[in-house]
């Protein structure tokens, strides 16, 4: 897998500082699991955070704080560490994502959103006013041109799509600001599966009827 489209440096900075919303964070972490280039940048950015720790004005901890932790450590040393539950079937999804979805594409309970378009809302993710979901787009299907109320992260997991910006294949991420309009089309023989997080659901929800209206190549 060679990745050509990466997370925006500003998004990576927010990931490093810990200020990305949980839903954006999940998609960013999933790309990071696949992308050594972004990972190296995040490590550099986290050094900024480490600097904030080192130059911190100090609040003392209570005298007994260390002993309390030491006691916990002693207690743990006495107990034999429980073996982590080991699932033998490996998920096809990268690790941050794998805890929220079935182990394979076939097992996902897709719901039809529009002709040629199925979706699955990830359960248990806080997404403030946005959503995180998987989309399955049939080959040749175009989503009409649209903008986004806020940032939208689209990570390709399988297949590919093209839009005005370029071609996105597995591992690539489209990190779009609200002011960018695009018109993606699933452009390979296989269906395109994407993980998409949005900050602003309203515009996105409003898109659904538009998809129904304007869908081409169904």
């Amino acid at each position, binding site marked *: 897998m*060679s990745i050509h489209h990466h997370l*925006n*440096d*500003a998004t990576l*900075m*927010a990931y*490093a*500082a*810990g*200020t*990305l*919303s*949980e839903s954006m*964070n*999940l998609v960013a*972490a999933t790309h*990071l*699991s*696949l992308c*050594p280039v972004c*990972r*190296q*940048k995040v*490590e*550099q*950015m*986290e*050094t*900024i*955070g*480490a*600097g*904030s*720790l*080192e*130059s*911190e*004005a*100090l*609040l*003392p*901890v*209570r*005298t007994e*704080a*260390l*002993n309390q*932790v*030491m006691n*916990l*450590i002693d207690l*743990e040393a006495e107990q034999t560490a429980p073996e982590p539950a080991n699932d033998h079937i490996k998920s096809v999804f*990268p*690790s*941050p994502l794998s805890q929220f979805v079935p182990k394979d594409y076939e097992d996902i309970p897709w719901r039809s959103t529009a002709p040629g378009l199925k979706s699955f809302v990830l359960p248990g993710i*806080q997404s403030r006013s946005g959503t995180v979901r998987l989309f399955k787009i049939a080959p040749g299907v175009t989503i009409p041109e649209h903008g986004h109320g*806020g940032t939208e992260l689209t990570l390709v997991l399988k297949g590919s799509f093209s839009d005005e910006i370029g071609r996105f294949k597995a*591992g690539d991420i489209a990190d779009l*600001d609200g*002011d960018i309009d695009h018109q993606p089309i699933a452009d390979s023989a296989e269906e395109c599966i994407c993980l998409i997080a949005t900050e602003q659901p309203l515009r996105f929800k409003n898109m659904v009827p538009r998809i129904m209206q304007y869908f081409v190549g169904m």
Partner: protein
Amino acid sequence: MSFAFYGPISFMDQVVREIFSAQSLKIFYNPSDPVLISDRKAVKGQNLDKPVQDLKRQSDMAVAVDTTYLTELLVKVSEERDRDAFACLFEHYAPRVKSYVFRLGSDELMSEELAQQTMLQVWRKAHLFDPAKAAASTWIFRIARNLRLDHYRKERHFDYDEQDLSLIEDDSDSPETEMDRNQHASIVRNALQRLPQEQMEIIRLSFYEGLSHGEISEKLTVPLGTVKSRMRLAFKKIRQSLGDAL
């Protein structure tokens, strides 16, 4: 009396937070701060049971950190389960993590609790620490940040998985990856000191005050796009300084 801190929280918190935010600001903005000065006293003190009383003195020493020494301590914890090394790390980092969490809006009690939990995680996860990949401070920052998000903000932070990369060929072996991570950390910190004020400001609001880009945009009344482009510019400069150092 350290218990004095546990009085009526709203007032004390306010006062302490103001004092500390003023101090960390001063430290952060002062370009003549001796970031690289080695001050092992800060971590080598043997009187682990003695409460730290002199806040002013401590905060003055706060920038003077020997990252290499701290990383060595963490390696000792990792490889030898060395409790004395852990106690030194605790003495150095627990107050810093506590201050970090406190400044981002938790109360005294919760901040200390999270500092303890962070250090407990340091002990538990020490076997995962790889000095070739991160300085101790960066690794501990990650743990503290993630715990704070989980416990305080109640929004999770997801870690990427080192294992997933084995699926892909790593084409990122620029010379930069070979650099000593402790050296790396100090170069980044020096580069930060030289950033233009407007870029420094948004880095401070993001990393020091935990504001999202949207919140920074509102606070400074500048467009979100401007916040993001300043972020990008700041990081570009930091990356350049890493490149220059080779």
